[in-house]
């Protein structure tokens, strides 16, 4: 983990989860598990966020909200689906109002299983998201550099 250069900010959104994963995500950010030691920080503002942690499945009401949140986040961005509901729809898959997992509306990079997902699993997901974010940032930087060269 010595090569971390950036400090991505987390945005947490509760899709239609049962709260179990949400409080585990919050518990991850408190002193006992302390995910912030990996250089991330929790924020409530999508415009400043780099990693989206989404819990719960997508229903007809929140699909627009999730899409909008994703669009508001600046590039590059990473999406991490926490809990089995966000991965596939989980126990509520057969409900009339559930469309499926988070990947029905936005591209998901990392899937964290579990019902409710354990803090250890969520931290693992966050670490992977941080690494992926680092990689994407470098690609993004290289792209911007090349474009600058072409222009000059």
């Amino acid at each position, binding site marked *: 983990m010595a090569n971390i250069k950036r400090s991505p900010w987390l945005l947490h959104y509760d899709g239609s989860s049962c709260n179990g994963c949400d409080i585990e995500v919050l518990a991850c950010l408190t002193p006992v598990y302390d995910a912030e030691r990996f250089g991330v920080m929790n924020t409530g503002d999508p415009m400043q966020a780099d990693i989206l942690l989404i819990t719960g499945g997508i229903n*007809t*009401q929140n699909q627009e909200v999730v899409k909008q949140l994703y669009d508001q986040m600046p590039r590059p961005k990473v999406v991490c689906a926490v809990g089995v509901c966000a991965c596939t729809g989980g126990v509520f898959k057969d409900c*009339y*109002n559930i469309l499926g997992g988070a990947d029905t509306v936005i591209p998901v990079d990392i899937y964290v299983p579990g019902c409710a997902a354990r803090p250890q699993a969520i931290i693992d997901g966050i670490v992977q998201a941080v690494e992926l974010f680092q990689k994407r940032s470098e690609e993004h930087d290289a792209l911007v550099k090349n474009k600058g060269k072409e222009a000059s």
Partner: protein
Amino acid sequence: MAEVIAPENILEEIELSDLLHVVMTKKKEGLRLSQACAAYVDGKYELSYSFADDKTYQLTTLRVVIDVDAKVPSITEIVPQAIFYENEMKELFGVNIEMIALDYNNKLYRIEEEAPFGPKKEENNG
């Protein structure tokens, strides 16, 4: 040893025309509307209005069995907090409730499917 009060729940079956009158009596007795719900069983709606007494812990449930197309008067004039229960019945079951104080017009949960618990679904499945 703690004092224990455990009365049986009561179920009162009433006619639709008596609904407002009985609800008014319950309210005057100082009871609190604990819950209201609908059920769709065998082509009829069963509406349940449960009133709780916080002193004796008795739960009295009023049961109204109505046809699918019957018009139900809203009890929100008497018990204002019933708006959420009645909107829920209207949206999820398609119960025809009239004159709700704050009518969300089937937009409480904003679901796409119309009355998923109501009779329509039954026909689709059968």
